[in-house]
């Protein structure tokens, strides 16, 4: 069975990569399992996806702990413990990494004994390139398996990208095929890994979990006031601005409706917006009865809240 893991950040197309690869294997008459794993979904958070492919029905499930291939679409994930990029990597695992640094640098830095190659055909650091990371990751993976034809890979791209329209399919085909060819030229290939044997295995280090008082064992978060320290004003793209000539000091509507408690009322009864924490949801503007709150673009102002 082939066991392949993709690592990236939310928005880099790792789920799409796993689906293109899964479909490509399926077209080649493999039994397939593909899935993404994420927690609280958001752009930029570490995400991984995996593909299993074999000639017989697949009984294994969940995260792959003994990968034959690891594709890393974002090299900043390597030092992030939660991303688990290197989990289960051995001398038999091929690592494909999207990086400006040389494969040899990564081999030495991570003390790897298996083959390392850089991902072909993506301009690292170019924001416009992010949309092709998924297809290029899938292409590199498909090419190193040696069992997926270019025709099957193209058919898989068509099937998975179709809902996004023909133009997007064409772009992805072009970039995918280019990366596929470049990877084939690299000459790296992976082999199907074996299953864990019941004859000789590492015994699990089970422990007896004992009683601990609720003072320790209840799931409470002790870290208060973190919301105060988190300057969420940075998130704002639109800022509410109060026209104090029109504010009739109703005292409470804008401040009550503010979901972040970022509007207080001063001694004179006028509302004041805490721009360090206002996220710019503009609910206050919608609520204000005398229409005394207007919207201004954040663009061009200094980040964090102070006037430019």
């Amino acid at each position, binding site marked *: 069975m082939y066991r392949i893991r993709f690592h990236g950040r939310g928005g880099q197309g790792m789920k799409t990569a796993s689906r293109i690869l899964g479909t490509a294997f*399926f077209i080649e008459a493999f039994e397939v399992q593909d*899935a993404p794993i994420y927690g609280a979904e958001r752009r930029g958070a570490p995400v991984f996806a995996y593909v299993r492919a074999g000639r017989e029905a697949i*009984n294994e*499930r969940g995260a792959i702990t003994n990968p034959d291939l690891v594709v890393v679409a974002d090299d900043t994930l390597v030092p992030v413990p939660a991303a688990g990029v290197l989990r289960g990597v051995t001398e038999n695992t091929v690592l494909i990494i999207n990086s400006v640094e040389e494969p040899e640098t990564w081999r030495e830095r991570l003390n790897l004994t298996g083959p390392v190659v850089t991902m072909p055909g993506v301009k690292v650091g170019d924001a416009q390139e992010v949309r092709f990371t998924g297809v290029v990751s899938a292409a590199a993976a498909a090419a190193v398996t040696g069992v997926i034809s270019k025709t099957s890979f193209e058919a898989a791209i068509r099937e998975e990208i179709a809902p996004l329209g023909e133009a997007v399919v064409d772009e992805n085909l072009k970039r995918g095929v280019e990366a596929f060819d470049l990877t084939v030229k690299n000459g790296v290939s992976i082999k199907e890994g074996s299953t864990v044997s019941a004859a000789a295995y590492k*015994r*699990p*280090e089970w422990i007896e979990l004992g009683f601990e008082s609720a003072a*320790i064992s209840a799931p409470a978060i*002790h*870290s208060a006031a973190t919301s105060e320290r988190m300057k969420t004003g940075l998130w704002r793209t639109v800022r509410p601005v109060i026209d104090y000539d029109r504010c009739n000091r109703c005292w409470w509507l804008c401040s009550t409706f503010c979901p972040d408690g970022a509007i207080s009322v001063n001694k004179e009864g006028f509302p004041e917006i805490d721009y360090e924490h206002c996220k710019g949801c503009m609910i206050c503007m919608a609520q204000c009865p005398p229409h005394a709150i207007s919207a201004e673009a954040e663009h061009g102002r200094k980040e964090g809240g102070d006037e430019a």
Partner: protein
Amino acid sequence: MKRRLLTGNAAAAWGARLADVDYIPAFPITPQTEIIETIAGWTDSGEMDASMVTMESEHSMITAAGTAAATGVRVFTATSSQGLLYAMEMLYTVAGWRAPFVLVNVSRALAAPVTLEPDHNDVLAARDSGFLQLHCSTCQEVLDGVLLAYRIAEDSRVRLPMIVNLDGFYLSFTREPVEVPTAKEAKAFLPPFDSKGMSFRASSPISQAVAVLGGGPYSYFRYETHLAALNALTVFDEAAEDFSKIFGRSYGSVESYRTEDAKYLFVMMGSFATKAREAVDRLRDEGWPIGLLRPRLVRPFPAEAIARLASGKEAVAVIDQNLSLGKGGVLFTEVSSVLYGQPGAPVMLSFIGGLGGRDISPEEFFEIAGVAKHAAKEGKAPPPRLLYTEDELKEVRKLQMIANVERGELEDEDE
């Protein structure tokens, strides 16, 4: 019939589509949302001729499902975890109405603390509600299970709602090859709902929620519902036989894998059971006489089948992906109650694993087999064990260390 890659969620949606359902009251929750998104797309494009309504809560959603089913139309709905618990009052109520419909539950462990990953405490909280329960271990079984569930729920010997359960992430977001029947094939197995005179209508009101005092009438209604649930054992077997004739896939109320000459058994429910299947194959490679039992039906509980398949074995290791706090594994308790006092009853071992989606490694299955073999030799079971390793506790200790530092800082600030 076409084979394609589908997630468990998409397979559930396909089940509803092929069952040609009329009405889908819905409320989104992770990891179930993709089911109602898929159905919403189909009802919008006209590929599915059904009425879908998003409700303001799961409590209302189940109420709507029950009332609609009482009018004699075919109803589908889906939820998960906290949503199922929020609907709990109505689960018991609509089952009491004897309103047949299918509810897909995508298992996700319960708060607190909050998580998104699966275990079976959510669906087992509905165990005694009167809803029947079918538990799936593959995406194929999810699609097939929805079709089977309608046949069972709507049968006049049963007429009860049924839950089809699939595990979050491990099935809900995982694509596997699934054979999708044509609408014609599905209809051959599952004809339109013959409601046999169920006629709850706005123009001719019926009170479904009668009050009964004194206990006698109440006992009658409750026990009749219990007997209807038990009838589902026979109805399931009949439906599964028809299913196998049309689609060539056989489903028993209990999956029995390499058990015939086995001395030891794993018993599990849901998608993690395929991991146990894999472990059985690896252990068999090394000459171990071991097999797997997996109840597909959990309500009604297939007691007879389990007794027949497990009697005469030397040891049975039940791995529960749930925890009844203050008691232990629910499946362990149920399987033990079936085997206790029977001739040839095996030594029973209890393991708790997979809580909150915690993985169970192949090595852990091998180790469980070893513990079971030892227990059979001693004729005595060890205490129940939580599958939990040294490394996992070390990770928790790190989090506690951070929490303690922060608590200390807060206490300093307070002074």
